[in-house]
């Protein structure tokens, strides 16, 4: 009971902040709402018992990436919004297609979960929560089952870093 009240409150906040991110006039305000949005998402993770993920969400997204966004936004200083797109009708067509895809996805999920036997859902929910704390479990999984994706991701980041250095430095 208490959990569902908390969940729906948080969900409302997340959606509300999400709407504010795209509608706020001032770009800096948008970034602040984005931070609030990420913090609320982190709280949802805490509710799910994934405190490691929650902390990483705050550390990486709210504390790292969005700070850089804020830097860029402040330095570029978008006093007036970007000009309206030259082709309004093409934009709305793309938007329509995206909305249709989204709707199809959501209904597919709904149909799938309805078709899934209730016993499977109950079994998934009844899986005992790990007792060692999920930092250890996440670390274990990352370095055993998901080693290749993990290494590929770190390679990608390394390439991005070297690329940034190349772009920023005229002579090497």
């Amino acid at each position, binding site marked *: 009971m208490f959990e569902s009240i908390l969940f729906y409150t948080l969900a409302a906040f997340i959606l509300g902040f999400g709407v504010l991110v795209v509608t706020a006039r001032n770009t*800096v*305000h948008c970034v602040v709402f984005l931070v609030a949005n990420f913090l609320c998402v982190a709280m949802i993770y805490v509710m799910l018992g994934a405190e490691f993920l929650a*902390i990483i969400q705050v*550390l990486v997204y709210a504390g790292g990436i969005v*700070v850089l966004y*804020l830097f860029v936004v*402040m330095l570029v200083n978008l006093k007036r919004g970007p000009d309206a797109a030259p082709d309004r009708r093409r934009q709305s067509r793309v938007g329509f297609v995206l909305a249709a895809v989204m709707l199809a996805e959501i209904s597919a999920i709904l149909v799938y979960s309805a078709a899934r036997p209730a016993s499977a859902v109950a079994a998934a929910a009844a899986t005992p929560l790990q007792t060692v704390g999920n930092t250890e479990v996440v670390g274990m999984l990352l370095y055993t089952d998901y080693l290749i994706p993990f290494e590929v991701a770190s390679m990608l980041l390394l390439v991005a870093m070297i690329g940034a250095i190349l772009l920023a430095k005229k002579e090497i």
Partner: protein
Amino acid sequence: MIDNFVIPLVKILVVLNATLVGVTYMVLLERKVIAWAQSRLGPMRVGPYGILQPVADALKLMIKEDITPVRADKWVFTVAPILSMVPALIVYAVIPFGPIVQMFGHPVSLYITDINVGLLYIVSVASVGVYGIILAGYASNSKYPLLASLRASAQLISYEVAVTLTLVSVILMSGSLSMVSIVRAQESSGMWYAFVQPLAFGIFFIGSLAETNRAPFDMPEAEQELTGGFHTEYSGMRFALFFLAEYANMIVVSAVATTLFLGGWLRPFPNVHVLSFLGFVPGWIWFLLKTFVFIYVFIWIRATLPRYRYDQLMRLGWKVLIPLGIANLVVTAILKVLL
């Protein structure tokens, strides 16, 4: 009921009040110590030897006019001090002031909570604290605060990397992210980590000076260049919030350094049995004493060292501290596997 609600609430109340009172008295301590370092007397008028000065300061800040500049972004201007105050206070939730003790027949833990990602929680909350500074500089709509806030955030982000690297080597030593377990690990190994990880301790200390914007790294509030830093346009209580946040952060980094490197609530030399008479002093007093030593050294450094130049600061961070931190981490990891 009493264990789940009353005791935690009382603990939160005690910690928050102690922090705020501690912060105001830290300002007095700083003024006194710097005055003595410069052969002056410091505040002497309010109360005997000026010990009531914090009360007078607080009263003055509360009744001062609170000005919002006309061209400021009002909404962000109001939110910014709150955004820097709240992270500075919620960090205290995971700091272990002492072990579990018996109090009026109830087992009471001398920390508000012990989550198993405690150290990461501190790092992430500190990284959110940057917003207060950036947004204050932006919202003031004035060039000096903007410059100062850009400096401050660049400095914070750079030194955060070095500090976090030292934390990783501490985590490798203790095998846990929980603050209480880190102290327990130092107890069972019989050594403060300052002796096992001297390099990490040094980097952490320098990095924490930079992260709290203290001299010799107080670039963001270099009076001679920037008139006053990111809070130039703030006045009254909102200015006081920034001030409180800064000093609360100083206490936090001192407490974290105590927990990670100086054995938290453990007595000095926990493995020497001759000194076991020191165990009569309760753990939380040891903790506060060690924290106080750090705070005192912070003030002492401010009275002694001149300010760095900005490029020196950045060079020190990126070219000295971060490579040293990485080297220390690699060596620690190798030794940990071998031994």
